[in-house]
């Protein structure tokens, strides 16, 4: 398990697109702090964390066929699925913490990390980074605000519940399908 999670961590830290997303997110957050938007900076920081989550999971399915290498190296799919989530949580936690600090709301760290893991689950199910990014950004930036406005009194499940559900669905999908 530790071996598999370590390998997944190596995969994440050597992927150029993740470093780029990270740098862009921090740059945007710092710039927006100067503008001081009404709803705070966290909603914008969330875009970066969502993209990061999608890319971390979805890059396996981009050109080159890396997913097959992953499954040949670790054919036990439940093990690989859990190792992926653990590695992403560990690698992403410091990034999310710094992002929340830069945004001036360190309390947002946990929420952002849950959003990132949910985005990764979507990336695993959709298997197409651009499509998955579209799905999560539409859901978070349009879907959720719309629902909150029109149905303010409904008690929706909290963020951890959504993330847990998304992870369960993604693990089940990953273990069952042919790659």
């Amino acid at each position, binding site marked *: 398990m530790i071996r598999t999670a370590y*390998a*997944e961590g*190596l995969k994440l830290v050597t992927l*150029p697109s993740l470093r780029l997303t990270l740098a862009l997110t921090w740059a945007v957050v710092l710039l927006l702090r100067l503008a001081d938007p009404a709803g705070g900076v966290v909603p914008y920081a969330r875009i970066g964390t969502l993209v990061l989550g999608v890319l971390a999971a979805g890059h396996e399915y981009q050109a080159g066929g*890396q997913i*097959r*290498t992953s*499954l040949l190296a670790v*054919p036990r799919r439940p093990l690989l699925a859990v190792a992926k989530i653990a590695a992403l949580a560990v690698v992403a936690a410091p990034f999310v913490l710094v992002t929340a600090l830069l945004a001036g709301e360190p309390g947002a760290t946990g929420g952002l990390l849950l959003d990132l893991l949910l985005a990764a689950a979507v990336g695993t199910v959709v298997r197409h980074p651009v499509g998955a990014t579209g799905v999560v950004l539409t859901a978070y930036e349009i879907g959720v605000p719309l629902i909150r406005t029109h149905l303010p009194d409904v008690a929706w499940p909290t963020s951890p519940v959504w993330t847990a559900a998304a992870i369960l669905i993604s693990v089940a999908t990953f273990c069952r399908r042919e790659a």
Partner: protein
Amino acid sequence: MITVEGVTRVRGRTRILHEVGFTARPGRVTGFLGPNGAGKTSTLRVLLGLDRPQAGRALIDGRRYAELERPLTVAGALLDGSGAHRSRTARAHLRWVAASNGLPKGRVDEVLELVGLSADAGKRAGRYSLGMSRRLGLATALLGDPPVLILDEPVNGLDPAGIRWMRTFLRERADQGRTVLLSSHLMGELAETADDVVIIDQGRVVSAGTLAEVVGDHPTLEDAFLARTASRGAAW
């Protein structure tokens, strides 16, 4: 030793493999021959645990690939493409694969040397030529120094020098006592490389044996192949 027994696989309503069975023995190069769409890749994917068969089993040294704890030390596989993300360097790619199976970091440089990629190890996989991509895939397959090698169309798209290199390389592995199973639709190429031949057509094994046995009275392997598959009519 590779043992495939009665593997049947259905995708949708199509039966793509019908009770496929054969063995590939150590110390020999076994050629898995068939026209495009005959079921070569499907069989190898079942063998490697990527797809599940509806019936039958495919074993490597008596065990299913999907049950292996450190599979890269038991069998190495080369499938279509390099198997590396295009923006990662070859060295970074091999490092994570090595780590996943608890292989020492030093092994990465050894396999890069073995396939002749040492000078280009810092390049991103997406910048590799087709021949270099195949070499990177082969380096990945060799990381765990496995006794079994499984290669799907390893010479596809290679230039004559590349084909010669691959052929010599696989011959050497078999001479070391390893099991080498390679698929191909190029009969001339396979006749040069293989000790044993398995012919598959429309999801069924139609002939298997040593190269001499399969060729039989026919002048060439190609003639033998066409004679065994001709009854089904020309696919094109």
